């Protein structure tokens, strides 16, 4: 019989962002393709006017922020709710072509889903 060692406690994963790893290859690729991403000043206009933001977790300000911090996983998923309506472009005070940016983020960060790995089980 194995003793019951699960007391219901466990170490939670650290939520801390380690900036030492922020400069990853994907972000560099994104910034090369969409240099305007560096101009974002986190004002939140895009998130405030987002058509999908009221109903889903989608928040472009946060997505951009998390990408610049090298923490992509949690946020890229949110982009699935984007309807590409482009309202965010209209309100961005820094003139960022946010819709184009979203497209590039999806292409660069969602590559495994766009091009599923082959060779397994076929």
């Amino acid at each position, binding site marked *: 019989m194995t003793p019951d060692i699960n007391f219901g406690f466990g170490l939670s994963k650290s939520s801390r962002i380690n900036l030492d790893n922020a400069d990853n290859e994907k972000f560099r690729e994104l910034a090369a393709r969409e*240099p305007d991403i560096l101009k974002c*000043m986190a004002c939140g206009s895009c998130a405030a006017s987002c058509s999908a933001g009221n109903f889903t977790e989608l928040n472009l300000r946060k997505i951009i922020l998390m990408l610049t*911090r090298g923490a992509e996983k949690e946020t890229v998923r949110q982009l699935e709710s984007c309807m590409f309506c482009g309202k965010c472009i209209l309100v961005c005070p820094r003139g960022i072509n946010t819709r184009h940016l979203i497209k590039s983020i999806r292409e660069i960060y969602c590559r495994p889903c766009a091009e599923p790995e082959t060779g397994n089980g076929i």
Partner: protein
Amino acid sequence: MDNNYNTIIIGAGPAGMEAAYRLSVFGIRTCLLEKEAETGGHLLKWDRIFPEGRKASEILGFMRKRIESGNITTITSARIDSIRKKAGNGYEAELATNEGKKTITADTILIACGFKLFNAAKKEEYGYGIYNRVITNADLENLFKTNSTGSIIGENRTPAVGFVHCVGSRDEKAGNRHCSKVCCATAVKQAMEIKEAYPQATVYCFYMDLRMFGRHYEDMYLEAQQKYGIRFIRGRVSEVSEDCNERIVAKAEDTLSGKPVKITLDMLVLMSGIACNPDSGKITGSLSIENDSDGFIKYADSIFGQVKGPGIFTAGTCTGPKTLPETINEAGEAAAVIYGYLKGNSNNF
């Protein structure tokens, strides 16, 4: 030469020098007193001046040329032993100078004794004076001037460098509630200069609010983001330690994501703020004018400025944080008011 002047100017920083020049153009005879061995005030310590990055030494050279006038007697290394109102009109000061003791008199006094840079060692959690890689904005200006950032960063061509805004400003515990006004722009300027020197560097600014208020300052911010890729993190660095490689580990909250962040740095630059010059309290005390609770000299009028005493005037950062052009403007204005006063117009307040 006799020791009677129209105006005694206390402090030969940018404010005192500019006022002396303006007054000399009006034919007003001034005695410009500087306690240090050289004129120039804090301008002596800076390398480049925001927003355009002009050389401080060039600006200072220009200002020094302008005070070479028969109407201006400049005394450096001057200690004011006493200053007081004379019986009747005017003021009298006793000085200790390199040429010995001296008594001078004047109809008016212009206080231009400037500010004192906040002592960053008071914020122990940042480790200034404890860790070699933690320096202040003033130290960095000096490293730029002497081309020696390598003395801190070493041979590393891909260093990580952090800037901490609001050190000793907006901080009740440090005794300074006020915003120092110039340090956001200084941080952004210095961050870009680091990227100029080390194009492969990663540079972070930890800010609470970014106060890029002046003309062209917002352009600096945009340039810092777009051209230099400087990363702005909204959150105050809370503590600093050293790792086993003697690099700096800084912790902060990234308040925009609500997450704690940690970073290892080759250099951490503290944006020490503009604090009041304790000398100003001694000077105002003997002239019966007041200082505010923040230590800076109190204005007689919140819109029109100047102080209460008849024949006593102020210019520059002794009345609160100001940029260089603001200081220069106020010095010109003070000269005009002094001229008016000497011609018989009262002080108004």
